[in-house]
């Protein structure tokens, strides 16, 4: 299978194909990271899984349509960027595109913030599970996979894109309700 047809089948929802890619470069990628960035095998595995997930997200969202470099060099480039990012922590200031300055929090601060954030996200995850399908599926298709309404209409078999859009609004509203209730219970 050519690399571009691999992309196409992943885009159409073939997760087994993603699994094949995962296995294909796993050994090489992980030993490369371990060797070049002095980290443990487990850490390298994490980076590899992240690279695969970013690759996947770029395909399903339509950002990556056609492979102009090889899948391998694409994955390695993401891995390299991520490792450099880790090292970049010393750099405290970055600029936004609009020229405003962005202050990255001190490491401790950001750790605390990250923990808080994760707690919130986990709660959203619980709420989504309570909500169940088709709402959960619909919201994931729209916000995570960034599918268009016509695409979602087809995947979930709605009458038309307007129905799907309406449904999305209702699902979001229900999610909000559940989330609000949960937040109140926790506090």
């Amino acid at each position, binding site marked *: 299978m050519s690399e571009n047809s691999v992309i196409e089948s992943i885009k159409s929802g073939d997760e087994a194909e993603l*699994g094949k890619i995962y*296995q294909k470069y*796993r050994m090489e990628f992980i*030993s*490369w990271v*371990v*060797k070049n960035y*002095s*980290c*443990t*095998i487990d*850490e390298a*595995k*994490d*980076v590899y*899984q*992240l690279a*695969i*997930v970013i690759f*996947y*997200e770029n395909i399903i969202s339509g950002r990556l349509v056609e492979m*102009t*470099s*090889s899948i*391998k*060099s694409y994955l*390695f*480039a*993401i891995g*390299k*960027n*991520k490792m*450099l*990012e*880790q*090292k*970049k*922590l010393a*750099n405290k*200031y*970055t*600029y*936004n*595109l609009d*020229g405003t300055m962005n202050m990255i929090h001190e490491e401790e601060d950001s750790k605390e913030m990250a923990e808080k*954030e*994760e707690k*919130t*996200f986990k*709660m*959203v*995850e619980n*709420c*989504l599970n309570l909500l169940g399908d088709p709402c959960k599926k619909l*919201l994931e298709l729209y*916000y*995570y996979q960034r599918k268009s309404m016509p695409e979602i209409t087809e995947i979930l078999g709605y009458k038309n894109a307007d129905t799907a859009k309406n449904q999305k*609004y209702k699902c*979001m509203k229900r999610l909000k309700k559940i*989330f609000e209730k949960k937040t109140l219970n926790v506090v």
Partner: protein
Amino acid sequence: MENEIRDIALIEQYLEGKLTTEELEEFEVRLQNDELFKKLFDQEETLIAGIRYTGRKGILDKLEAMEEKLPKIDLEKPSEGKVVPMRRRTYLIAIAASIALLLVTVFVLNKPTNSEVLFAKHFTPYQNLITSNTRGEVTIKELKELAFLAYDQENYTEAISNFEKLPQEQKNEDIFLYLGNAYLAVGKTEEAIQNFSKVLEEKGDFQNQGRWFLALAYLKQGETQKATLAFEKLVEDGSSYGKRAAEVLKEMR
């Protein structure tokens, strides 16, 4: 109710980076002044980030389940972790930022149409890019993609190195604009100024953006006179940056 639907649609457009500069300003002013709107915004943002987190986690869980069934990797000399360890948690959370990042991403991604054609036309094969470890050879088009990829991931040093490797004739005004921004982001103001000046020399579609960032770079360098001139020009031209330029001018006094 009607209003809420409209506001939610507006917030989504904002998060997707689809608002025009004017709408964006209006949006931000409203966020500051309208408490209810701010509350709605925070809620939407949290839920969307949470949905993305859930989606990403779903894929990661599947990968991990597969990983556990695969033969263990046993390298000859497993090394000690020296780099800041990258735990799974960290990058699951990293997705939250992707919402804020989207503004930048969309801006970058909407651009290549014109340049993609250019690239196909000027296709010069085989330039070595990736370090000695991957022996793949990389074309100009890939180089540009990698540069934007790095830029997207806020890895500006890497983006600069890739942009700079592009042959001279491939560097058009949008490359200069992004390159300038990347330089500005890592604090290399002099190089940033050079690139923004080139944007202005091109007299193309990015005049206002180029001037705005040039002015900011001058400002950073302490060249207030030059910065003032550039900001004033933005105000005079009635550009979309005029309002912000006027604000900066006011603050400079």
